[in-house]
C-alpha cells in the first residue's frame, strides 16, 4: 500500500514538489511570526530571579536615588543596581546606529547581571574610570570597536554629550539581543547634570524566584505614601509591557497567520483534487481488484498527509537558515530582537499544522474516491 502511495506522489513530481514547497514556505512564515512574537516580548533574556522597580505613573517619570538603599534593605534582596535610559544619538539618526545605551552603577551591575560574562580585569577597568563603558560582543563586532576605542554619544533626553572609552566586552550565553547593549557609569551624566539624583529604574536580584511575589508587594507598599509611588514587577512582565504597548500586534499576527493557513489550505486541496481527478479510473480498478472502500480512503488520505508532513519537514529543515537571514537583515535596520531561536514549541506547531493540512485537504477527494461507484469510475475517461 505504501508503495502505491509513493508511486502516486511521484507520478506528477513537479506538482508534488511545488505543493510541498509552498507548504514549507508558508509554515516557515508562520513559525517566523510566532518566533517574532516570542522574541519581541524579550522573554528569552529575562532572569526569573530579577525584578524591576519603576515609577508608578510611567517610565518617563523617575524616582529619587535614595530608594536604592531602602529597596536593598528588603529581606530577600541579594543585589540591586540602577538603570537609566540615556538614549542619545550615536553618529547619526540612522536606525542601524540605534542601540540601547544605559547608565548604571559599575560597582553593583555585575552582581545583578551575573549572566553577562565579563572578566574580572574588565570589571576593574570599568570601575576605575568614570568615562569607561562596556558593550556586548554582538554590538562591538558590528561597530568594529576595540578595547580602548573612544565614542561620543550626543544627549537628547539629557542635555549632555558623553565621551566614552570601551573597557570591556561582555557575552550572553544564549541571547544575542542582550549583547547589543551599551552600559556606562551613570555617575558621569549625574555629575554633568549637577547631581539631580533621579533614577528611571532599579534592577533587583532576589535570593530565590519563590520570594518574587512577596518582594513585589513589599516594594510597592514601602513607597505607597511617598510622592513617588513605584511599580515592581518581574523582568519578564516588564518586557511584556513593552509588547502590550505595541497595541494589538498579537491579534495582527494571529490574523495574518490564519490567512496564511487558509491560503495554503486551498493550495493543497487544489493539488489533491487535481491528483484524484486524474486517477478516477485507477481507483475503480483498485476496487475491482478487491481493495475495500476504507483501503481506498486510507490510500488517498495518506498520500495527502505525506504531502503535508513532507512540507512541514522541509520547512523545519530550512527554517534556521531563513530566520537567521531575516533577523540579520532586520538587525542592520536597527530592529534587534532576542535571538530568534527555534524552541521546542516550533517543531510541534509546524508538524501539527502540516498534519492538519494534509488530512483536511485530502478528506474530500478521499471521500469521493471511497464513495464512487465502480462502474462510474470505469466509465469516466480521465
Amino acid at each position, binding site marked *: 500500500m505504501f508503495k502505491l502511495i509513493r508511486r502516486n506522489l511521484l507520478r506528477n513530481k513537479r506538482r508534488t514538489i511545488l505543493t510541498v514547497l*509552498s507548504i514549507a514556505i508558508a509554515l*516557515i512564515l508562520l513559525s517566523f511570526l510566532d518566533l517574532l512574537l516570542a522574541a519581541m516580548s524579550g522573554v528569552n533574556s529575562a532572569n526569573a530571579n530579577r525584578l524591576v522597580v519603576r515609577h508608578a505613573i510611567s517610565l518617563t517619570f523617575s524616582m529619587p536615588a535614595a530608594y536604592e538603599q531602602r529597596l536593598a534593605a528588603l529581606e530577600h534582596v541579594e543585589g540591586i543596581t540602577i538603570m537609566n535610559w540615556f538614549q542619545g544619538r550615536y553618529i547619526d539618526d540612522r536606525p542601524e546606529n540605534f542601540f540601547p545605551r544605559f547608565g548604571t552603577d559599575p560597582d553593583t551591575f555585575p552582581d545583578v547581571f551575573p549572566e553577562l560574562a565579563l572578566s574580572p580585569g574588565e570589571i576593574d577597568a570599568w570601575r576605575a574610570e568614570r568615562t569607561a563603558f562596556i558593550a556586548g560582543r554582538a554590538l562591538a563586532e558590528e561597530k568594529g570597536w576595540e578595547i580602548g576605542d573612544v565614542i561620543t554619544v550626543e544627549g537628547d533626553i539629557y542635555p549632555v554629550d558623553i565621551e566614552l572609552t570601551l573597557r570591556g566586552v561582555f557575552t550572553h550565553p544564549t541571547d544575542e539581543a542582550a549583547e547589543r547593549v551599551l552600559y556606562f557609569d551613570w555617575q558621569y551624566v549625574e555629575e554633568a547634570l549637577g547631581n539631580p539624583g533621579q533614577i528611571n529604574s532599579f534592577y533587583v536580584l532576589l535570593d530565590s524566584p519563590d520570594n518574587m511575589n512577596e518582594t513585589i508587594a513589599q516594594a510597592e507598599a514601602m513607597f505607597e505614601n511617598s510622592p513617588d509611588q513605584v511599580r515592581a514587577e518581574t523582568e519578564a512582565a516588564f518586557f511584556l509591557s513593552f509588547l502590550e504597548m505595541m497595541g494589538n500586534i498579537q491579534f495582527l499576527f494571529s490574523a495574518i497567520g490564519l490567512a496564511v493557513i487558509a491560503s495554503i489550505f486551498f*493550495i493543497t486541496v487544489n493539488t489533491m483534487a487535481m491528483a484524484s481527478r486524474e486517477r478516477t479510473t485507477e481507483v475503480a480498478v483498485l476496487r475491482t481488484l478487491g481493495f475495500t472502500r476504507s483501503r481506498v480512503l486510507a490510500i488517498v488520505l495518506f498520500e495527502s498527509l505525506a504531502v503535508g508532513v513532507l512540507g512541514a519537514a522541509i520547512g523545519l529543515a530550512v527554517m534556521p537558515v531563513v530566520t537567521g537571514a531575516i533577523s540579520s537583515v532586520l538587525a542592520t535596520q536597527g530592529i534587534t530582537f532576542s535571538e530568534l531561536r527555534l524552541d521546542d514549541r516550533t517543531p510541534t506547531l509546524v508538524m501539527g499544522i502540516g498534519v492538519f493540512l494534509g488530512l483536511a485537504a485530502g478528506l474530500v477527494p478521499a471521500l469521493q474516491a471511497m464513495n464512487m461507484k465502480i462502474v462510474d469510475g470505469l466509465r469516466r475517461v480521465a
Partner: protein
Amino acid sequence: MIPVKYNVRSLFVRKANTLMTIVSIAFVVLVYVGVLALGAGLRVAFTASGDNSTVIVLRDGANSEMESYFPTETHRILASMPGVARDADGEPLASGETMTLQILERLDGSETNAVLRGVEDGAFDLRPYIRIAEGRRFVPGQTEIIIGDQLEGEVGDLELGSAIDLGRFTFTVVGIFDSGGSSYGSEIWGNAQEFGDSFRRQNYYSSTRLMAESPAQVEALIEEIESSQQINVTAQDEPAYFEAQSNISSGVFLRLGNLIAIMMGFGACFAAANTMYAQVAARSKEIATLRVLGFRRRTILSVFVLEAAVLGLAAGALGALLALPLNGLSAGTTNFMTFSEVRFMLRTTPDVLGAGVLVATLTAVVGGFFPALSASRAPITTLLREG
C-alpha cells in the same frame, strides 16, 4: 493575435481548479493589503496632525515632545517673536503644551501608555479642525479633561462623565473631541497647569507651537527662533516633525508587509504554476491545433502568460474586495518616538489596493511563465500524441 476572451473561457473550463487558485492567491493579497493599510492609516493620522504654517519648538537636542522640556519663560519669549501670527485681538497664536505619559489599563486588562497633553486655549486656536463631538471643553481649575475620539471605549474608565486618577488629582471626563483623523485622537487633554500640579512638574512646557503668518513665512520664523541668543531650542515645521514619527512607526508595517508578501508570494506562485501546468497538460491538443493553424511559439507563450495574468488579476480583485471591510477598522501601535500608544484607523487607499493587485498579478505571471514556456516549446507531434 488570439483574443483575451479565449483565455477567460479556458480558465472557466476548469472552474474548481481555477477558483481555488484564485482564492489562495487572494488570501495573500488580503494579508498584504491589510498590513499596508495599517501603515497607510498611521501615515494619515500623522499627516493630519501636521499643519504647514505651524512651527513646533522643542528643547535643543530633543527629537520629540516626550523628551523635551523647558521653562514656561522660554515659551513667553517665543510667543512674543515678531514672526508669530496674531489673532483679531492682537494676541499671538502660540500654544505652550506639556506631554506626560500615564500607564492606563485597556478593557482587556493589558496596559497602554496614554499621552496626557496639558494645553491652554491657544491649542484649540492652532488646531481649528479639533472640535468637541460630545460634551464640552474642560474648564481650568475644575480638574476636568477631554478625551480623543480614538480613546473612547478603548481604555477602561474613559467615557463621558467618568472620573479617573491622573497623578495626585482625580479628573472628570467632560467631553470627547473629534480629532479630524489626526494622531491627537489618542490623547487626553486637560489644563497644562493642572497637569503640572498633579504630576509635580510645575512651570515647564514640553513644546511650543507657533503659527507663522503664512506657510511661506515658516522658514523665516524658524530662522528667527534658532538664531535667538536668549533660548536654547530647536524648531521645525509640524509636517516635518510628524513625518519623522510616521516614518519610524509606519516603516515597520511596510517592511513587515513586504516580507510577508515575498514569502507568501512564493507559495502562491507555486500554486499558480500548478494550475497553469494543469491547463497546459489538459490542452495539449488545443495547443497543437493552434500551432498547426500557424500560430507561432511566441504567441502560444503569450497566450498562457496572459492567461496567468488574468488569473492573477482576478485573484487581486478578489483579495482587494476581501480587504475592503478593513477600511476604518481601529488599530493601535506604539509611536516609537514618544513611546506612547497611537490609535488610528486602517486605510485601504487606492495605492494600497493597487499594490495588492500588482502583487497578485506578478505572482501569477511568474508562476505561469514556466508552464507557458513548456507549452510553447513542445513539439507539435508530442502534443498531439499526449492529448
